[in-house]
Structure formats: C-alpha cells, structure tokens
C-alpha cells in the first residue's frame, strides 16, 4: 500500500519539511531543484516522499534547469514546485518571467539566507524581497507569501498552489533560514482541497488559448489534451501567436498585471496583534515578526502602547491596509533582516502621514527584542 500523500495529524517538523508536506498535500507531484543551503530539507524530504506517492523528484544540473523543468511539468499537467535560496533564486529570474508571460502555474520557494553573493550560506537573511518583486526583466506582477512558522509554511504552500492555479502565475514562498530550520508543532488536516486547474470549456477548434475569461485569466490547455496550442515567451495574441505590435504588447502586459491587481481580496493576508489601542505599530514578516512580538511586549511594559502588523502577503504589497494603519497609529517601525526593503513599500503606502523608522541589520542573525524595543522608543520620541 503506497504511502499516504496527506500525513494527517500532528507533527514536530521544521519549516522546510512543512513546505514539502504542504506541496504534497496541495497536489504537487513534480519537484525539480538543485542543492543549496538552507533549502536542503525541502528537497531531501521530497526526494524521499514523492516517489512513495508516484510523484516525480528530479535534481537538475542547476537552478535554471530546475525552474525550466517545473514550467515544463506544469504544461505537462502537473502541479510543480522548485525551492532554492538567494544564489539559485537569482538564476531562476529569467524563467520566472517565462512563467509569468506564459501564465504557467507553479510555486517557487526561496529560503532566504544572508546575502549578497555567497554571504552566510547557513545563516538567516531577508534581503531577496525586492528581487522577488522585480527580479525578472520587464514589468509584471507575481504573488509572494511569507510564512513565520512551520505551521504557516505548510498552510501557505497549500495556499500558494491554489493561488498559482487561480491566477495562472508563479507564486513565491519567501521564507527564511530560521523559519526553515526551526522545529515546531505542525498540524496537517485530514483533507486538503486540491486547487482545480481551469480547463477549456470549448472544443479545440473554438479555443483561443490566451483569450481570458472575465476575470482576465484564460483557461489552460496542457500538452497532450488535443488542443495543440503554441506557448511562447514572445509577446503573443489571443491565439498564442507571436505579435510584435506595441498594442498587442500593452494589451497583454496590462492583462498579466491586472488579472492579479484587480482581486487583492483573494491574496492579501496580514495579521494584526495588539493594534487595537496601539500608538506605535511594528511592521514585519517572517522570523522578524516573531521577534518583534518580544519588542512589543517590552514596549508595553515600558508604558508604550505598541502592536504588530505582520505581513503575510509581501507582494502585491497590502498598500490599503498599511495606509489605514498609518491613520490609526503615530509611528511605524519596520523590522527586517536587510538594510531597508519592505520599509520602502511601507513608506510609500504611509505617504508621510507618520514617521517610519527602520530596525535593520544586514543578516546572519535574527533581531533581539531589545533592538526592536529601541526602535519603538526611537519613533515614539520622534512623534511626541
């Protein structure tokens, strides 16, 4: 009796393993990757688990090949995923763009480590956030989610597959080395709904592969299903035929962006902690958000009413929610393991209503609660 796909029950596992199980639970049956710390546990677990359930695990010759194989597998009808860290993430950028342009559902996990370059391979970082948003070339839109615990790593991976099928776009899991390697309780439900792939509703001779439904997303005909469509990274028209006109380009690129931007309610997730009466809000994500709770607590003990706004969706950035936050507090502190990336988005969303103070460091360790508290004090003084 082959092993079960969904390991329902309570587990003690790290974030990487939880991502692997989330993918399997979501119906992922194809994983291609290249070894890189701190992603190893994802690949190793899937190398062990996917063959048990008739899935495909393949270690490719580099990360470019890994993402290319994932795109191919998606067009072969499978839910497909790859996982990497900074250096590999950089190599995947061009094919991320191919995935966007050809509207290929897939999930890409970036277990961030201290960078740039080889940096601190085994130590935490959060410096790939802007690369996640703009790393490929051209103007486009993707969705990126940031888990702050192994449980959320499982849940958001399941969510990522659903969003990638719904919007026909690569969805990124932007986690980090600490969440990836920390062990916590992870509950896997008895069942996990497998997100459907939107299929054509007309026979091949009437089907226009890139003519969208009203929600701007076209049904997807995969290989071997009798639709015989042409899929190209070139700018293309509704038939999928290359079209080199600026008009076709504008129409296509706008649709690829609007199909996501017009439905924020479907992917905008954030968590508010103790913000009801807060004067100072800490905005953070991933492991940094966990530490920030310690800073909030120290502030509260020192008589400063602080709270946490935790980003779960990094991209598209929850602008409205942060703008509304700025109308409820006097100051904002952004805590992230880089020298200011998501803070730029916060500043843009806040539009100068309140001061925004960054608590940064370049990488290799997580913040201390005291550092966060000092940041809260700093901005508290500024806005008195």
């Amino acid at each position, binding site marked *: 009796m082959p092993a079960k796909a969904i390991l329902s029950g309570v587990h003690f596992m790290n974030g990487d393993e939880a991502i692997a199980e989330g993918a399997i639970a979501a119906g992922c049956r194809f994983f291609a990757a290249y070894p890189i710390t701190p992603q190893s546990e994802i690949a190793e677990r899937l190398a062990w688990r996917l063959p048990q359930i008739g899935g495909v695990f393949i270690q490719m010759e580099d990360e470019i090949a890994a993402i290319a194989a994932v795109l191919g597998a998606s067009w072969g009808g499978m839910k497909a995923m790859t996982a990497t860290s900074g250096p590999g993430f950089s190599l995947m950028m061009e094919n991320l763009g191919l995935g966007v342009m050809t509207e290929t559902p897939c999930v890409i996990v970036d277990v961030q480590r201290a960078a740039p370059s080889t940096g601190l391979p085994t130590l935490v970082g959060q410096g790939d956030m802007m690369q996640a948003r703009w790393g490929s070339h051209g103007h486009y839109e993707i969705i990126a989610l940031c888990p702050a615990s192994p449980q959320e790593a499982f849940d958001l991976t399941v969510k990522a597959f659903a969003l990638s099928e719904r919007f026909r776009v690569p969805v990124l899991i932007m986690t980090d080395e600490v969440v990836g390697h920390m062990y916590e309780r992870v509950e896997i439900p008895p069942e996990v709904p497998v997100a459907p792939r939107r299929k054509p509703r007309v026979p091949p001779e009437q089907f*226009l592969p890139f003519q969208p439904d009203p929600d701007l997303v076209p049904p997807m005909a995969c290989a071997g299903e009798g639709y015989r469509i042409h899929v190209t990274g070139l700018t293309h028209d509704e038939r999928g035929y290359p079209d080199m006109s600026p008009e076709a380009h504008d129409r296509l690129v706008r649709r690829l962006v609007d199909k996501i931007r017009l439905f924020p309610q479907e992917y905008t997730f954030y968590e508010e902690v103790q913000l009801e009466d807060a004067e100072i809000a800490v905005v953070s994500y991933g492991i940094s958000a966990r530490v920030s709770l310690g800073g909030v607590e120290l502030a509260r003990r020192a008589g400063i009413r602080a709270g946490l706004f935790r980003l779960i969706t990094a991209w598209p950035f929850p602008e409205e929610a942060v703008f509304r936050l700025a109308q409820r507090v006097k100051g904002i502190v952004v805590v992230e393991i880089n020298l200011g990336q998501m803070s730029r988005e916060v500043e843009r969303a806040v539009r100068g209503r309140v001061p925004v103070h960054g608590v940064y460091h370049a990488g290799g360790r997580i913040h201390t609660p005291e550092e966060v508290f000092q940041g809260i004090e700093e901005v508290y003084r500024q806005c008195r």
Partner: protein
Amino acid sequence: MNETQERVAKRWRVPKGYVYVLEEFCKGCGFCVEFCPRKVLAQASHFNDKGYHPPEVVAPEACVLCGFCERICPDFAIWVEEEGGSDAG
C-alpha cells in the same frame, strides 16, 4: 481557429500527376531548380509579390514525380501529387 487561408496555386500536368507551385510562399532560393534530377524546373522570369522568381515547370515530360523538389523546398512552396489524387510524396 486554425482555418487555413484560401490559397491559389499554379499546377502543371506531368506524366504521373501534377506539380504544384504556391508562388507567394517561394523565396527564390533556387533549391528545387538546382536539385531536380530531371531538370524539369526553371526560374520564372516574373516575380512574386515579394520580388522573388518562383520556379515553373519547363520540361513536364521529363518529370518522374520523385518529389525531391518538395523535399528540398524550405518554404512549402512546391509539391507533387500523383494523378490518382493520393500524394506521391
């Protein structure tokens, strides 16, 4: 979706069938004329709308319908058809 446009071709009667030439596809590379083993074809004097000289059958009686013109043509502009209507290709 993939309806094929209405194409008008020139067709020459040859002993075993027909030789078709779709002049507007031809890019005047001369492969068919050069490598026809029976010297059936020659470059026409007129141009197609792209300014290329398409081939034309000048020695129909020499044609044995070997189909090499069809095989060597890079532009799908020339092909043969056995008289019985089945493709001799």
